[in-house]
């Protein structure tokens, strides 16, 4: 692998799962006992992309879109049905030790540390698994436990920790060997919003400090929006967008939001003349206005109504994504395909 080669390269990566369908009810069960009906599900469909050293890339998509399957293919957990990939110059599913020692995967729904033992005992095992020299191990553990503000929690049995604390411990365990590539699969799943935010900050800080190439999957748009310059949006196993999320909004948001605060009550019918009303309580209204009409609508509002304050915003990333996953959005994407 030369310096110019991408850290991760996927070409037409495809994975098909075969599932057996059981017919309904007891008779169906008996029938399936004799003859099972096999169906194929394309979880990842000819996916291609490249990721350069130090990038923090987010995979975004609804449940079952193929995000985690792509991650499992890249980390060597699954074999593809067709297509190729290299990570750090290795074919992941060959699972060479030299490759596995340089990557790490954290799965939000799976514990990798020992449940009944303190996390620090599992860390010692990781020291031997990844052959980390003692001094480096101690330094790294010190650095990570202080970055993640774990204190003495690593000395408590894992089962006694909260979900957020456990996830922090999982992160420490997976970073001790300073992986060159880090796969984070839904790391904030199930966490409260405050802990989600804290964990995002920590991941961002770690990646900034170390320049680790990181892929993050999440169905929380906030995770991707805050952490990743680049997002790959996956739906039904295919990449439907590859690029910056803000640019996605600029490209696909057909409307902007105008929020107005009035000095006195304004009748709803009057407000509705200026755009589609998203919210209105008489004193405060939010309007969806087509982008090209925004300057005119804002000027009219200021001129004709008793406006105390006005703000113009892009619609949220979340709304754009919702639009993308809708029929209308798919049509939009078809129009813009190849331009991402």
């Amino acid at each position: 692998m030369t310096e110019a080669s991408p850290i991760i390269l996927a070409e037409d990566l495809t994975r098909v799962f075969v599932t057996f369908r059981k017919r309904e009810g007891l008779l169906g069960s008996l029938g399936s006992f004799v003859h099972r009906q096999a169906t194929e599900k394309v979880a990842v469909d000819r996916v291609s992309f490249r990721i350069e050293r130090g990038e923090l890339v987010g995979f975004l998509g609804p449940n079952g879109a193929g995000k985690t399957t792509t991650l499992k293919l890249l980390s060597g957990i699954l074999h593809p049905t067709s297509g190729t990939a290299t990570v750090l110059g290795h074919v992941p599913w060959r699972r060479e030790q030299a490759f596995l020692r340089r990557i790490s995967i954290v799965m939000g729904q799976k514990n990798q540390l020992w449940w009944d033992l303190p996390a620090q005992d599992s860390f010692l095992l990781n020291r031997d698994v990844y052959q980390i020299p003692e001094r480096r191990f101690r330094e790294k553990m010190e650095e990570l436990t202080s970055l993640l503000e774990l204190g003495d929690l690593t000395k408590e049995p894992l089962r006694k920790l909260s979900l957020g604390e456990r996830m922090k411990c999982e992160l420490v365990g997976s970073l001790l060997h300073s992986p060159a590539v880090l796969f984070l699969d839904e790391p904030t799943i199930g966490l409260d919003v405050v802990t989600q935010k804290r964990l995002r900050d920590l991941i961002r800080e770690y990646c900034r400090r170390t320049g680790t190439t990181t892929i993050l999957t999440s169905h929380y748009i906030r995770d991707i929006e805050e952490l990743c310059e680049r997002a790959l949006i996956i739906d039904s196993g295919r990449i439907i967008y590859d690029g910056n999320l803000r640019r996605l909004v600029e490209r696909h948001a057909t409307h902007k939001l105008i929020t107005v605060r009035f000095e006195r009550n304004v009748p709803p019918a009057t407000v509705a003349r200026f755009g589609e009303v998203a919210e209105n309580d008489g004193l405060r209204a939010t309007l969806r206005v087509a982008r090209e009409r925004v300057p005119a609508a804002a000027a009219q509002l200021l001129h004709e109504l008793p406006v105390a304050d006005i703000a113009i915003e892009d619609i949220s990333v979340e709304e754009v994504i919702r639009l993308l996953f809708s029929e209308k959005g798919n049509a939009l994407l078809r129009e813009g395909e190849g331009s991402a």
Partner: protein
Amino acid sequence: MSEVAALVRRGAGARKYLSTIVLSIQDALTYRASAVVWMLVDFIPSVVMILVWKAAYSGRTQVGGYSLSEMITYYLLTGIISGALTSHAEWTFNWEVRDGRLTPQLARPIHYPLVVICRETGWLITKFVVGLPVFLLLVYIFRDYFLIPLLSGETWLGLAVVAFLGYVILSEIGACLGCISLWTVEAAGMFGLWWSASSVLSGSLLPMELLPRPLYALAYVMPYRWTAYFPVRVLLGKISETEIWHGALFQLGWVAVLTLLLAVLWKAGTRRYEGWGG
């Protein structure tokens, strides 16, 4: 120099498995009461068989070449040896495949079947040490019958070797059975069938000499007789030193066959593994 470096690397590679055993002992010690209970469970069939045989011996001095004392000693030793050597790697395998815990393990620089075997080893060491008083209590209860093994130094050494190889054979069988889960997800029925056959064919339930001829022939070609039965017979002083080493060679043969089989099953199984459970 590079050879030395390679050796050091290999040593460091083996250390992760040793650490897994140590961690598994720590883990098992958090539930030490459970270890004692499992040791008790292991001895229940032996105690039942002792009581049955005591009734069957009334008026006889020998059955199948065993005196009553030898028979009771046989079952007590089988209890402790089976309990200490019987790894159930297949269950761990099966659970972790079913609930998806295997998935992240595949992205670690480890050989998963070997890690499962090491985890079982830690558990068995703990069970053996914590459960030893149970064995000593039973020896005390049947003290009038228990024959203390008086063996030569070479026989003790041979016993250590054949017990270790017996353990490796059982662990590899467990791991091979566990690999079936990679195809079927649920393989408990298969395990039940295999281990029921094992209790008869390994000599745990009754000495092999007492089996009907066809079963004896079957037991002879299966690997099980090299697990519980063989070390117990060595401990009873029924095997000569030369036969012990011949037996160890047979065991090594089985270890080679099972290592190969495990490698093939693991490679093929992980190829089709679907990473269930998110």
